[in-house]
């Protein structure tokens, strides 16, 4: 199976995937913001705006608070590195890429945890009021999101016998489990988790200027220059990661095997981009239709996701009758 040619294909596809993800992440965020602005009746900034912001911020030297330590300087690098590795692990346009054996759902969750902890510690580093507030809320939300993610993973593990994302995607693309109510419930649970993890409406408003309601942005108030650029880039990568994850788990169609060669890759990449844009558009429509909820309503929102995940797993127990 592991002939040199297929190995080369896997490595090349992986490198292409990483490059595509790293370049596309700010564009995806830009498209999402542009769509949302259009839906709200604004003209909206160009989808290239996030990249422009990043490059502009990169040219500036960061200003650190006097009370800040080396954590403020190291944390953005750790967050981007962890998120980028996680994004490299989630399959994109191709299946069976070089890092496919590593692409475990729990490992990806763990890497996102690294980025989250780095962000929370950076938020607390300067010792300002808002940073600590945001860190406390972020960690509290994560506590509710994690079990919902785990129960969704349980549904996948029952259906395919694995938590490897690449394996699940391949199995689902082959139509192994068919259409199941449990999968719909797991989808709802994962959508809620994705909204919370990315700090999107209704959990958090990425465009807010009211500090008291902020979570994610509150931790970045002291960041500036290239550090701020890194944080923003990590956020864009995380958004792409989650959309790619939903894509791989629930729309695993039209992907190319890593050994298929460049032409198939290009077709698959175009299809993948289309599906990602579809998800982004759905997110924009959803965000337009709903208002941000109070901070202390978020546990109810994520608790509902947890219950849906549990319901999905229980339905699977009853329907599959595993022995």
């Amino acid at each position, binding site marked *: 199976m592991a002939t040199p040619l297929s190995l080369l294909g896997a490595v090349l596809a992986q490198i292409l995937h990483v490059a595509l993800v790293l370049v596309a992440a700010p564009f995806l965020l830009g498209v999402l913001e542009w769509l949302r602005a259009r839906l709200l009746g604004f003209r909206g900034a160009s989808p290239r705006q996030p990249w422009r912001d990043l490059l502009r911020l990169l040219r500036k030297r960061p*200003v*650190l608070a006097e*009370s800040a330590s080396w954590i403020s300087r190291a944390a953005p690098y750790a967050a981007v590195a962890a998120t980028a590795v996680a994004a490299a692990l989630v399959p994109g346009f191709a299946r069976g890429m070089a890092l496919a054996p*590593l692409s475990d759902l729990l490992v990806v969750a763990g890497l996102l945890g690294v980025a989250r902890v780095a962000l929370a*510690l950076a938020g607390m580093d300067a010792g300002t009021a808002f940073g600590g507030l945001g860190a*406390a809320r972020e960690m509290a939300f994560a506590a509710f999101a994690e079990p919902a993610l785990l129960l969704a993973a349980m549904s996948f593990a029952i259906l395919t016998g694995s938590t490897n994302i690449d394996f699940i995607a391949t199995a689902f693309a082959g139509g192994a489990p068919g259409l199941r109510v449990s999968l719909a419930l797991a989808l709802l649970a994962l959508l809620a988790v994705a909204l919370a993890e990315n700090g999107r409406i209704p959990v958090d408003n990425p465009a807010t200027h009211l500090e008291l309601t902020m979570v994610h942005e509150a931790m970045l108030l002291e960041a500036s220059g290239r550090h701020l650029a890194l944080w923003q880039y990590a956020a864009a990568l995380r958004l792409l990661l989650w959309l790619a994850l939903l894509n791989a788990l629930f729309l695993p169609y039209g992907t190319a095997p890593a050994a298929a060669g460049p032409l198939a890759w290009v077709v698959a990449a175009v299809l993948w981009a289309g599906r990602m844009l579809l998800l982004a558009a759905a997110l924009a429509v959803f965000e337009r239709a709903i208002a941000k909820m109070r*901070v202390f309503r978020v546990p109810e929102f994520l608790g509902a996701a947890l219950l849906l995940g549990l319901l999905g797993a229980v339905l699977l127990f009853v329907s599959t009758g595993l022995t």
Partner: protein
Amino acid sequence: MLTAYVLLLAVLVGLALAAPFLAGRRHGSVALHAGGGLVALAMAALALAALLGVGAPHAGLTLPLGPPGGAASRLALDGLSAWFLLLLGLSGSATALFALGHALPRPNRRHHAAGPADRAPVLAAQPLFLAGMALTLLAADAYTLLAGFELMSLASWVLVAADHEVAENRAAARLYLIVAACGAVALILAFGLLGAGAATGTPAGASAGTPPGTPGGLGMDLAFAALRAAPPEGWRAVAVLLLVLAGAGAKAGLVPLHVWLPLAHPAAPSHVSALMSGAMTKVSLYVLARVALDLCGPAQPVWWGVPILAAGVAAALLGALRATQESDAKVLLACSTIENVGLVAAGLGLAAAFRGADLGPLAALAAGAALLHALNHGVFKTLLFLAAGEVLHGAATRRLDRMGGLIRTMPWTAACALVGIAAAAALPPLSGFASEWLLLQALLAAPRVGDLAFQLVAAAAAACIGLAVALASAAMVRLFGLAFLGRFRTPRAAGAEDGPPVARWALALPAALTVLLGLIPGPLLDLAVPALRPLVGGTGLPGPQAFSLAAAEGPRYLPLPLALLLGLAGGALVLLLRARSPAGVETGPAWDCGFIPPPAHLPFGDPLTQPDAAGFAQPLRRMLAGPLLRRADRDAPDRSSLDRPGHGPPALRDPAWVLLFVPAARLRDALAAQAERLRGFTIRRCLTLSFATLVLLLAAIAWLERG
């Protein structure tokens, strides 16, 4: 090899005997700590050799000691014992190194006044504590195990009561002694039931009511081999399981018998807290694993694991939740210990259930997760408690509200603590993540036990453990952020400094070990195979798996490539930004949303504008802890005056405290009041009472003799 262990035990006892003479001397405590550390190191080395299969296979060893009238005490060293001895040795040597570092006289400062940790009983109790734990792990019969367990309990009680001038420590020590005594009673009863089954041979004869053995049970064969040959069945099995769960669980900190742990562990000197949290709870878990999984045999049904799983999950959840709320660093760490002990117990429970369902590979997976997590937690919790001890030395406080900014004054401690925090928060590629990944894989595979009720239990357990892991991550971020980051909260924190060089190494070595254990979980699991054998039998043991962790089939976790990728990404990022971005950083006053910099009379800024321990805990308190820990949230501002911030009562009530311990204390008081009435009896009534007791006992004997 066993002979070497016996010699080490003798050395420990010798150290304890020498302690009263050494306590007053100038280098007395140095010698004691050095001796204890060397013995612990030797224990770890011997255990590692035993796990690797070096040296002659070890037959049991019989010591010419034992209870009067009973068999001589027997020692043995199998894989399970060796695994826990390895953990004990690692934790013991690190804690001894830390104590040594602080006991060594330092050239440029006055020798510190002898504190409570330098008293003779405390110094004598430390080697005895180590000896008790080692004896428990080496025991091959119930008497020896109980003797070691009790030695461990009593020695650690002395250590908890070391600083007995403080009323809270006295209360903690008393509660600890009560729980330890109750646990011992439960364990003795459990072994009695096991031994009775072994003595009568067939359980059928036992249930018919024949008296087991000779009166007093001294004729029972309580060697593990004999107990293993006659696993309990029926009601006896239920009773043994519940009694062991109560006895070993009380000592390990399983719900609902955990309330003593956050009180007693912090009361001891820091290096002893580290040993108690890192090693003693694991020794109790060893007793649980030994009795429930090994001695009770492989023939137990699926439900056998459910009580262990339930107690473990409850402990994980409650411990993590309390850890997010506590405002004392050492109490927080003790609560985190409850959480991790719960995770290990959940793994053991899952292993028992899988074994009952004949799912050998999954049982090995779950038991492997439990053993790996026990080792990992033992190391990183030792590290964290030692770091808390260093902070206690440096900043003279355990309260998070009096720390802050220590990363700048104690950089060494902060860096080591960061490693421990990241491992405890289950961040890849550190050690905590590897074992928790394995445990979660076992949980996610649990629905393969066909029973629907068990599947529901497994789904609920998965949700609870996910919640517990995420809560632990929040608790660890809170601990590190409040203690080491931000502005100084007190001048003491601004003047803190790292410990002496030897104590720094005592932090750096467990930190390095935490990283190492995280990178090589696969070889570690191979190392644990001899330890898995008594737990899951010979079937389904994992094969060699170089540098990766593979669940029974399918998903794999490869920490080394992952760490490599992370390093690669980080390095590439640094190089890229160095080319594209101006070098260096500027510093200035915190922007803080445009608030003006603090005036000169507030050198660390306004303390009220930095989140404190209660403030950082507030979201989770309001979302989860308030409802679960029986505390109404009263964060609303005090309406009577606008300038006073609203403060709720700081104490959260643990449900186990409210539901179990308070009623138990009330019952004790009621019984005592009733017993007091006996004193007012007339002589006639007293005689009647004695006579009635005599008649009752005679009747009982007659009934028992009748069979």
